[in-house]
């Protein structure tokens, strides 16, 4: 990768919270750890901190590279760095792996202090609210009373919204990209199919596959293949793969004929090689449960009444997973409360994944919005 405008070499850090955290679902973690990375410098008045929240498969490694694995570039490196839209010369940016994750934060792969074995399926279900609560402990630890901004795409955007509700005084700007105020039935349906793929894998062993020394790779692989279909738009899939053949001819077998099959298998294999199945399960459940309006008879405007942050909401025209209409629900609920909100609907052909790309209007809108934030 080019190191131009890169934050360069970064190293993950570890935060230990040695007090119990009660979870929304009823469970309790006696203590927990979060891995995180920081880019830029916290200013003297501690007013320039920005939290980047990751989506389903993301991590704390948002930007830059690790010395021991220079090929592993942060997942939002095109956005975060010196001179980039989220400019690390101005902001102190933090990426954190969420609770229940599989990149080093306390999760199903961690040892359960009560049994001395990996949590596996015994790890409690975590909600978006719990993620935010855990992130707030990290903020306390870093001496950040108020975030200049919290930014996230997809599930990350939900965390930004949740911050504005759980800690209205601690977030000045919420940036929710390709997000939604709750999942639709179709969204939940896709999640359920992905979960069933994992749950029905013979090597799942009720979630205690680690005790058996195996991994439900077939289930994970299928789950990821399904996910990838929903991340791309129909048009883009056609443009990228069409009906192109892998080997130039029809093989009349169940092997790989079409490039799209090859792509999905590759993505599935790659993912199944490193991602934890229990983390996948609980993360999709966190998505399903997120619904701030649930406690307000479905009235999102009433739910968002306590938010004080200014919002930037952005969506992508070809995103059918979290369509522009879902983002507009957030916008109209904020408008009902006369909150400050700017909404950019970006004409981009890459579907849900657009939020990870660098469409010029998208990045220009983010840059303009972030430049106006006073620190």
């Amino acid at each position, binding site marked *: 990768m080019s190191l131009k405008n890169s934050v360069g070499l970064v190293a993950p850090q570890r935060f230990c919270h040695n007090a119990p955290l009660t979870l929304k679902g009823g469970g309790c973690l006696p203590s927990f750890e979060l891995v995180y990375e920081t880019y830029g410098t916290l200013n003297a008045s501690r007013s320039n901190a920005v939290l980047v929240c990751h989506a389903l498969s993301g991590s704390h490694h948002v930007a830059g590279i690790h010395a021991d694995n220079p090929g592993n570039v942060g997942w939002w490196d095109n956005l975060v760095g010196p001179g980039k839209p989220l400019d690390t010369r101005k902001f102190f940016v933090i990426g954190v792996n969420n609770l229940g994750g599989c990149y080093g934060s306390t999760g199903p792969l961690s040892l359960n202090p009560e049994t001395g074995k990996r949590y596996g399926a015994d790890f409690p279900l975590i909600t978006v609210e719990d993620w935010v609560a855990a992130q707030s402990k990290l903020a306390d630890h870093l001496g950040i009373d108020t975030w200049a901004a919290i930014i996230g795409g997809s599930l990350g955007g939900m965390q930004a919204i949740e911050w504005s509700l759980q800690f209205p005084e601690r977030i000045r700007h919420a940036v929710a990209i390709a997000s939604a105020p709750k999942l639709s039935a179709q969204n939940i349906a896709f999640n359920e199919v992905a979960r069933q793929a994992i749950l029905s894998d013979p090597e799942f062993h009720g979630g205690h596959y680690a005790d058996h020394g195996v991994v439900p790779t077939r289930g994970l692989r299928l789950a990821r293949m399904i996910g990838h279909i929903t991340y791309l738009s129909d048009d883009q899939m056609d443009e990228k793969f069409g009906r192109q053949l892998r080997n130039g001819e029809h093989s009349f077998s169940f092997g790989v004929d079409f490039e799209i099959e090859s792509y999905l298998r590759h993505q599935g294999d790659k993912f199944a090689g490193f991602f934890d199945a229990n983390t996948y399960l609980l993360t999709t459940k966190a998505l399903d449960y997120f619904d701030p309006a649930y406690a307000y008879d479905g009235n999102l405007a009433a739910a968002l009444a306590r938010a004080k942050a200014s919002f*930037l909401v952005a969506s992508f025209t070809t995103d059918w997973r979290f369509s522009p209409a879902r983002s*507009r*629900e957030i*916008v*109209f609920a904020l*408008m*009902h409360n*006369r909150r*400050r*909100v*700017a*909404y*950019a*609907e970006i*004409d981009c052909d890459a579907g849900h994944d657009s939020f990870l790309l660098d469409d010029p*209007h998208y990045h*220009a*809108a983010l840059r*303009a*919005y972030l*430049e*106006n934030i006073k620190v």
Partner: protein
Amino acid sequence: MTHGKLHGTGMNPLTAKERERFDFAVIANWIAAGEHVLDLGCGDGRLLRYLNENKGITGYGVEIDDNSVLGCIRNGIDVIQIDIEGGLSGFEDKSFSHAIISQALQAMHSTERILGEMLRVAGEAIVSFPNFAYRVNREAIAAGHMPVSEDLPYEWYDTPNVRFFTIVDFEALCDKLGIEILERLAFDVFGQPVTDDPNLNGSLAFYRLARKA
């Protein structure tokens, strides 16, 4: 026509900058301090900014054009990027004091729907548009050309305008749609108010509208 002196009057038409300030002042005059307003086709948000600075208003702009949306964000204006040709679904009834469309209605196709929606989401609407029947425009047509004037500054082949209408036409449409004209102001290109035959002598028209009771 050129943008120089007119017909030996010795007066210069307002410059683009003066014209903008003039338009804003006319609209601001109809807005009470602290109102919550909606500006449709808000460009880079400069009208909202003016109203905020001079009247302490709050509100939102609506734009479809990417560069205008960026301009709004840069100007710190709360802009909603949607296409108002499809209406204002999602905007709540009577949630604004005024809905404004300043010299943008002529660039929209769904004229009737937009006027109806403005008076659904706001108690009153403010509409300004260039009067196609202004004397200079008529002279251009009579001479065989599409008009290019102070308030219609585009050549026929690059104009964003899609609806060409006059003060008389607009008032007929308001009548048809059950819209009451609370106030009308017409101005010539010098920024002078026109009372004598505004459809002939007015270059720019401003309306304050409400639903007929």
